[in-house]
C-alpha cells in the first residue's frame, strides 16, 4: 500500500491556488470577458485578422486613406485603421496586402419582400412593397439588436445568396416592388453594394430606401444621397452617455446625418426606440424633439417605437404604451408635425393626421392604408400640404 499512499501530497495550497488562478484567469480574459467586466462588451478593438485574398463578393472599398499605421477607413465615425490582414469593426472591410476591400458585395444573407411601412416609412409611397436586402455586419454594438445574428457577424459567417446589383433590381421588378430597401443589418457597412444597386435601380425606375443607424461620415453620406430616395434613421437616444453604453457609438455624428439628409433633399423619417430605464426619460425626449424642430426637421415623421425584450436586454419589460403616448404629446408640443407610435397594434397613432386641421388623412391598420383624407398630397379637409413622397 505504500506505493499507493506513501507519496507526499503534491497539490499544495499554493499550487491549488495557482491552478484556480489559471482557471479563473482563463475565463476572465476569455473573448469579451474582460470587456464585459468593465461594463462594455466588445468594441475594445478591431476583430481578429482575416487571412487569404478577397473573393468574388469583394470590391475595393471606397473612402480609404493611407496612414503611417495602416489604412484609415473614413466611411464611418469609428475610423478604423487597418493594418494588413485586419478587419474593421463592422466586420466586412478588410485590408488585404495594403488594399482595403469590402467583402460585402453581392452576398446578402437576408432577402425579403416587406411592406414599406415595416421600415417604418409612412410618408413614402404608402401601401407599396420594398424588396429588402441585408449583408452581415454593423458598425454599432446595440444591446437590444433584433438582428444580432447578422449585425454582429461577418459575411463569412452567414449563409448568403449570390445576388449582384443587377439581380437585385431584376428581382425587385419581378416582385413588383416600388423600392429596394437596404435594411435589417447596417447598410453603411455594405455601402459599395448598396450604392451600385441604388444607382442601377434608379435607371430602372425603382426607388431606394436606406434604413440605417445614421453612423456615417459626411462625405460618403452626401455621395449616397445622390442615389437614394428615402431614409429612415434610428435616433437611438439623445444622450451621448447612453449612446456609448447602449450602442457603443456617439450621438453627434447621427445628428449630423439627419441634417445632411434633409439638406440633400432625401425624404427622411426618424425612429426613436423608447427603452425602459435607458431612453424613456421624458425630459431627454423633450430636448430631442426641440432639437429636431429647431433644425428644420419638424416635417419629418417621427416614430416612437415600443421596445420588446431582445438580445442582451432580455430582462426588461416592454415599454408601457402610456410612456409612448406621453412622448408623442411632448414631440407634438415641440413642433413635430407627424408623430407615430410603433409596435402597438391597433393604436390610433398609426394613422396620419393633418397638422393644420387635425383631420385623419391616411388611415392605417398595420400595413393597410386608406388615403381617403389625402388628395394630391394635400389634406382633403383643409388643403394643407402633407409632407411626403406620395407617388
Amino acid at each position, binding site marked *: *500500500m505504500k*506505493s*499507493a*499512499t506513501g507519496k507526499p*501530497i*503534491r*497539490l499544495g*495550497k499554493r499550487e*491549488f*491556488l495557482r*491552478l*484556480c488562478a*489559471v*482557471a*479563473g484567469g*482563463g*475565463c*476572465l480574459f*476569455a*473573448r*469579451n*470577458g474582460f470587456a*464585459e*467586466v468593465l*461594463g462594455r*462588451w466588445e468594441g475594445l478593438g478591431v476583430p481578429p485578422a482575416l487571412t487569404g485574398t478577397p473573393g468574388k463578393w469583394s470590391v475595393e472599398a471606397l473612402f480609404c486613406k493611407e496612414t503611417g499605421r495602416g489604412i484609415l477607413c473614413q466611411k464611418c465615425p469609428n475610423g478604423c485603421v487597418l493594418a494588413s490582414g485586419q478587419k474593421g469593426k463592422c466586420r466586412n472591410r478588410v485590408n488585404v496586402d495594403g488594399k482595403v476591400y469590402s467583402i460585402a458585395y453581392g452576398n446578402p*444573407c*437576408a432577402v*425579403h*419582400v*416587406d411592406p414599406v411601412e415595416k421600415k417604418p416609412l409612412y410618408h413614402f409611397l404608402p401601401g407599396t412593397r420594398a424588396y429588402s436586402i*441585408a449583408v452581415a455586419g454593423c458598425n454599432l454594438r446595440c444591446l437590444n439588436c*433584433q438582428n*444580432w*445574428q*447578422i449585425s454582429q457577424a461577418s459575411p463569412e459567417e*452567414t*449563409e448568403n445568396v449570390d445576388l449582384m446589383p443587377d439581380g437585385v433590381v431584376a428581382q425587385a421588378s419581378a416582385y413588383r416592388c416600388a423600392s429596394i430597401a437596404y435594411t*435589417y443589418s447596417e447598410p453603411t457597412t455594405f455601402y459599395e453594394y448598396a450604392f451600385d444597386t441604388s444607382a442601377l435601380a434608379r435607371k430602372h425606375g425603382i426607388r431606394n430606401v436606406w434604413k440605417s443607424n445614421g453612423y456615417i461620415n459626411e462625405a460618403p453620406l452626401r455621395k449616397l444621397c445622390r442615389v437614394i430616395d428615402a431614409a429612415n434613421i434610428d435616433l437611438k437616444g439623445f444622450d451621448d452617455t447612453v449612446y456609448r*453604453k447602449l450602442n457603443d457609438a456617439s450621438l453627434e455624428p447621427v445628428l449630423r446625418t439627419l441634417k445632411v439628409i434633409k439638406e440633400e433633399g432625401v425624404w427622411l423619417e426618424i425612429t426613436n426606440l423608447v427603452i425602459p430605464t*435607458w431612453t424613456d426619460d421624458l425630459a431627454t425626449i423633450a430636448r430631442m424633439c426641440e432639437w429636431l424642430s429647431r433644425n428644420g426637421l419638424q416635417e419629418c415623421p417621427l416614430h416612437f417605437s415600443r421596445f420588446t*425584450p*431582445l*438580445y*442582451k*436586454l*432580455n*430582462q*426588461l*419589460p*416592454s415599454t*408601457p*404604451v*402610456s410612456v409612448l403616448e406621453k412622448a408623442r404629446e411632448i414631440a407634438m408640443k415641440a413642433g413635430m408635425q407627424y408623430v407615430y407610435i410603433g409596435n*402597438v*397594434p*391597433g393604436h390610433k397613432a398609426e394613422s396620419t393626421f393633418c397638422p393644420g386641421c387635425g383631420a385623419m388623412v391616411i388611415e392605417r391598420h*398595420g*400595413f*393597410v392604408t386608406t388615403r381617403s383624407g389625402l388628395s394630391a398630397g394635400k389634406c382633403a379637409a383643409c388643403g394643407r400640404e402633407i409632407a411626403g413622397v406620395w407617388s
Partner: protein
Amino acid sequence: MPDDPEQLTVLPAHLRGAAAIPLPALALGMSAVVTQFLLLREFLAAFGGNELVIGLVLGNWMVATGIGALAGTRLKAMHLHVAAPAGFLLLLAVLPPVEVITLRVSRNLVFTAGGMVGIPGLLVASLALLLPYCIVSGCAFTVLVKNADPHGQNSGARVYAWESLGSVAGGLLFNILLVAFLGTFQCLAVLFLLDAGLAYLLARRQRFRTLSALALLTALAGICVMVLVDADGLSRRFLFPGQEIVSSRDTPYGSLAVTRQGEQWNLFESGVLLTSTNDVTGREEAVHYALVQRRPPRSVLMIGGVVSGAPLEALRYGPERIDCVEVNPWVIEAGRTIGALPEDPRVRIINEDARVYVKKSAEKYDAVLINLPDPSTAQLNRFFTLEFFHRTKEILTEGGIVSTGLLPAADYQGEEARVLGSSVLTTLRNVFRHVLIVPGERHYFVASDDSLTIDIARSIEARNIRTAYVNGSYLDDALLAARSREITSSFALRGEVNRDFQPVCYSLQLDYWLTSSGFSPAWLLAPVALLFVVVFLRSTPVEWGIFATGSTAAALQIILLIAFQAILGSLYQMTGMLVTAFMAGLAAGSGPRARIAVGRGMKGFLLLQCALAALSFLLPLLLRLLNSGPLSPPAAYGFFITASVVAGVLTGMLFAVAVSMSAVASPSSASKLYALDLVGSAAGALIVSMYVLPRLGVTGTAVAAGLLCLAGACRGVIPSVLLFQRRLL
C-alpha cells in the same frame, strides 16, 4: 481573561477535544446548506438563467469552500483554534444577509440594467459574492478538525460526518419548512438567530467573555434591524429599476414579483419576465395561429402563458372548456392581481406540473397550446421532446392541433437558430403528419395529423373574429406563406430528435445563448480539463480517487435531478429533497460503522470506487425502465431518493476510507482531501451541466462518470500491480 493563551492551555479536554465536534459541525453543515439554497435562489432571481447558472454558482461555491478549507490549514495558533468555532459561527450568521443585499443592490449597478449577463460576468460576480461566506465556512471545517484533534488522530471523517448530518438537517429544514412558509429574509433571520445564538453559547461555555458579549450584541443588533428595517423590500427595488414593486413572494417554485410601470403590469418569476399586460401580439399569436386552423374547438389545454391573457383570446372561439395548467398557485394569484385571468366558468385552473398532467390525464382536447419560453433549461426542454409530443398526441382528439413557439423573430436565422429549429421540426414530424411554421414575433410550430393552412388572415376573417394584430391589416398571407416556406426549408436540414434523456434542444439552446453572449464553451472547458489533467498527474491515487469521486457524484446528482424533472415534474421541494437525500447518504457513509464495514485499506477504497462506477453504469438503464412504464409516483419518488442515498453513501464511505488511509493522517490531510472532493465536485458540476449532459445525454454522461470513477480505481490498482511485479522480480 478569556482570550489569554496561557489560560487556554488548561482548558478541560472536553472543551476542545472530540466532544466539541458535534454541535459546531452540525451548525456549520446546516448553515452552509441553507445559505447555499438561499443564495442560489437569489442568483437565479438576479440573473435569470438555466441549470448552467446553477452549475456555475454551485461550482464556485465548492471551489471557494475548498480554498477556505485549505486556508484553514494555515491557522496554527492554538488559541485561535479553540475560539474559532464560535467566532466562525458569528461570521456565518452575519455574512448571508450581507451577501444577499450586496447581490441585489449590485446587480443592475455593476451589470447592464435589465440585460443578460454572460458567463464571464456571472463567474466573476458569483465567485466574488460567495468567497467571503465560503472561505469562512471552509476555514471553519478545517479548524473544527484541528480543534477536535490537535494531535492528528484522524478525526476528519467524523467532522465530515457531523457536517454532512448538519447539511441533511438544514436541507430538511429548508425544503420542508422554510421554503414553504418563509421568504428569503425570514429564512435569513432564522439562520442568523441560530448561528449567532450558538456562537454565544459556545463562547460562553468556553469562557470567552469578549466573544460571547460580541455574539450577544450582534444578535441583539440583528433583531433590531429585522424589526425596524424592511431589508427585503428595500434591496429588491434595486432588481427592478424604473418599476414599482406591487407584490413579491418567494415561492417554492421561484421568486415571484409583480411590478408596475404606468398602466402596465409585469410578472417576473426568478428574474425571468413571464408576461406583461398589453402584449397583444404575443398573446394573439400564441392562440390564433393554431385555433384558426379548425372548426371552433370544444376543449383547449393551455400549458404556460396562463396569465398572459391567452385564455381570453381562446374564449373568442366559444369553447366549452379551457384547461390551464400552471404548477405555481402564486402565479395564478398574481395573474388575478394583474387582471390577466378571466373570471369565466369555462376556464379551469389546474395546479399541477404540466408534464405530469399530460402524462396522467384522461381528458381529450381539440387543441393543446404550449406557450412556454425556449428550451433554455432542462426543465423547459421536457416540453419539446419526442416523449412529450407523443403523449400530447394521445390526449388530442382526432385531427387535433398542438402549437408551440420557439426563438424570437429575426430577419435571418443564424446557424444555432437553424439547427435548433430543425430539431424541434424533426421531433414534431416524428409524431405528427403535418407541421406548419408560422413566422411571427416567435416561430410558431403548429402540428396536426390533418392538413394545416398558412392563410391565417383569410381564415380569421372568415370566422369573423376581431383581433388587434392577427388579421389582414398586419399579416399578408402571401408574404407569410413565402416566409414560412423559407424558414421551413432552412429548418429542415439536419434536425436531431429531441428526447427526454437526450436533450438536444437544451444543448442547442445553450449554444444559441452562449453565442449571443459572445462566449465560447471552450473557454470554460479548457481550464476545467486542465484541472483534471494536473490533478491526475500530480496527486496520489487516493487524492485522485477523491477528486474523481467528487466529479462522479456531482454528475450522478445532476443526472438524477434532470431525470426526476423529466419523469415527475419540476417540484422544487422534491429537488431539494434529492440533494438532502444525497447528503444523508454522505453522513451515513462517512460514519465509523460504514467505514469499518469495508475496511480501511486500499482494497476497500478500490471496491467502493468500482461500486460507484457500477451505479453510474446501471443508472441510465433503471431510468429508462422507470420512464417507459406507467407512472407510479410513490415508486418513482422512492427510486430517486434511494438512488440519491446510495450515491451519497458510496461517496461518504470513499471519503472516510481515504482519510483513514492517509499515511500522514493529519488534520491538514483531511482538509486537503475535503478540498479536493469539493473542487472535484465543482469541476464535475460545471463540465457536466455545461457540456457533457447537453451533448451526451443521460446515458452518455452516466457512462462517462462511471469511466472517470474507474480511472480513479485504475490509478490505485496500477501502482499496486507494479509493486507486486517489482517484488516478483
